């Protein structure tokens, strides 16, 4: 089913939302309402997002797509609580994150948000195991608990044998697997992946897509992925198309044409 948004004025009408599997209340893990983001460059204001609003269903694999400069990364940063909107509202699990202090936001991210980056962003001085263990330290888990969780998720992404290797001893695909394990080890509410296959060849890209899909189903986690990789888009349960900072198209189920 396709929902066209001709204005940038917020959420889709209730019947459409229901049809898309997005109940207006608790079923959405993330809900954006009329989000505007404007950057100041000197005395010039540059709009990056212009009144974006939608909800993302829990345990879904959602794609945010659009050309370069359309505002995908800005949108992902706001959803991930890395940046704050100039105006509008972001709710995660029904909680307005704008009210949180910087420390509270950090704690919120530590508990609820996993990140997968285009450039993998592993800590180069730590082994694969230590990279995966790192987010659990922020949650104050005990060593035995951390070890068990990290080994389990490394095994799940197929890297148990390479756990002692540093990032520079891993291939691009292996690095991204470690990044996926790192994002999932703390069992977050949702995982944000910014162009996760952009730096991988097609074979590794396909493997990573398959892995993300598998983990999303297996762990019942919400994945929010920004991409313009058609191969990745075929796995989307929902696709949000952004252009010039506005949500112009929302497709629920299957690939967007």
């Amino acid at each position, binding site marked *: 089913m396709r929902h066209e948004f001709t204005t940038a004025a917020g959420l889709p009408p209730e019947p459409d939302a229901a049809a898309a599997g997005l109940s207006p209340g608790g079923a959405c893990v993330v809900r954006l309402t009329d989000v505007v983001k404007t950057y100041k460059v000197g005395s010039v204001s540059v709009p990056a997002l212009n009144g974006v609003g939608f909800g993302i269903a829990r345990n879904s694999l959602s794609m945010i797509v659009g050309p370069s400069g359309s505002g995908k990364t800005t949108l992902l*940063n706001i959803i*991930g609580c*890395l*940046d704050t909107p100039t105006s509008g509202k972001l709710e995660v699990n029904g909680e307005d994150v704008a009210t949180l202090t*910087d*420390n509270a936001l*950090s*704690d*919120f*991210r*530590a*508990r609820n*948000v996993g*990140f997968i*980056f285009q*450039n993998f*962003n592993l*800590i*180069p*001085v*730590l082994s694969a195991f*230590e990279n995966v*263990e*790192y*987010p659990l*330290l*922020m949650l104050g888990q005990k060593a035995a608990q951390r070890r068990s969780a990290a080994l389990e998720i490394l095994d799940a992404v197929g890297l148990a044998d390479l756990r002692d290797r540093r990032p520079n001893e891993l291939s691009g695909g292996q690095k991204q697997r470690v990044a996926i394990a*790192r994002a999932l080890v703390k069992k977050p509410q949702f995982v944000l992946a910014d162009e996760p296959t952009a730096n991988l060849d097609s074979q590794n890209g396909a493997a990573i897509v398959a892995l993300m899909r598998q983990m999303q189903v297996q762990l019942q986690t919400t994945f929010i992925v920004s991409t313009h990789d058609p191969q990745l888009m075929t796995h989307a349960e929902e696709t949000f198309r952004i252009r010039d900072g506005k949500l112009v198209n929302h497709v629920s189920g299957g690939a967007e044409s």
Partner: protein
Amino acid sequence: MIFKIAFRSIFRNTRRSLMTISTVTVGTVAALVFGSYVVYILLGLQTGTVRGGGHLTVYRKGYFLYGAGNPAAYGIEGYDALLKLIREDPVIAPRLAVATPVQAIAGIAGNFANDTSKPFFGTGFVPSDRDQMRQWDVYKFGTPKEGLGLSDADLSRGVIGIGLGRILGFCEVLKIQDCPPPPVIQRQGSARPPAKAPEFLADLAQRDRPKGAAASGNAEPRIDLLAATVGGAPNIVTLSIAKTAAQGIKEVDDSYVGMNLKLAQQLLYGRGVPKVTGIVLQLHRTEDTGFVRQRLVFLFGEDHLDLEVRDFEELNPYFVQVTAFMSSILLFIAVIIGIVVLFTVTNTVGMSVAERTAEIGTTRAMGLRRRGIRWQFLAEGWLLGLIGTTAGVLLAAAIVFTVNHSGLMWLPPGQAQPTPLRMDLFTRKALVVATWLGLMAVATVSAYWPANRAAKLPIVDALRHV
């Protein structure tokens, strides 16, 4: 994990980190080697001062300011009772090494056989007490192998400064080094030979010469000491020179005479009641000086004694000046080292922040608080300091050990005899710990500015950094 990341991160750019660690190491070595050298000098100076004049001296009130002009007028009567009071006080006794009377004296020393004379100042002391004082060696510098060679029973013998021996013409008999024949001085306006000493003085000296000395046929050179008695009459005694003793300062060396206390009293008080100028107290530990001084003041107040107490720093302004001078140089060097370490570590950690901006963004995104980022880079500064200062302490210990066993000799300030060049590091735990902790603290604080900058980076800007 913070320290694991910090430790591994500082070796991501090994050359840069090693340069920084080397700077901290060299700074630590410089501070410790110079510091231990300064400590050695100051302790050596203290040892020399305490061996010569003790820690505390008890005087009649007013002597310290006015007594030098007329020592006899400020004599302490009944000093045996005072000595007993001090030695038997239960608070002072366990801290006391030596308590001994001394008599300051001034007059003219003459070798009338050679037609030479020279104003002298001197001290009368108890030879056995003085020998015991010269054994004070709390800081392990080594004690003199020989005593003064005087005995309490033999009043006739004493010591003089090397310069005085030279002036009075005893170069050969006393085997004084650096003693060329004196130049012939043409006296203007008179062709007459120098006047002989009045015969009555020689007779007086001969009459007062101790019987034992005359009978023993002592071959030691003799000088006659002329001084005014308390009553103002001239008095003269003869002194056999047992040996010369270098005094370290030329003015003192040219004028010093040390003699048995009883001889000094005989010269100054004649047949009157003998007194002393002061009671010198040498303590086991310098740290007890203030405490014992307070106790003495209390005792004198309780017994209504008209006495005052001075410590060795008051009596030797030179000691205080050298201490202040050396300490100020040490402080100056320490500040320069601290500044160098500060700039070097700030630069290294700053470069590390710049290179790891994306990593900062990533860890912040994963939920690390700003405080966590700050601690991460402070830990790196601390580790650079820890490695550098620890290496510096070990290297300084090796240098000090080598120097101490090299057999080098030198003449410390205010000392008369060359002593082995040593540095006092191994017993100076406070110096080592203060340098180690101090430079480590500087290194840690140096990392604060870049760490704070890293902590304040906006996450999205940091993530965008390539």
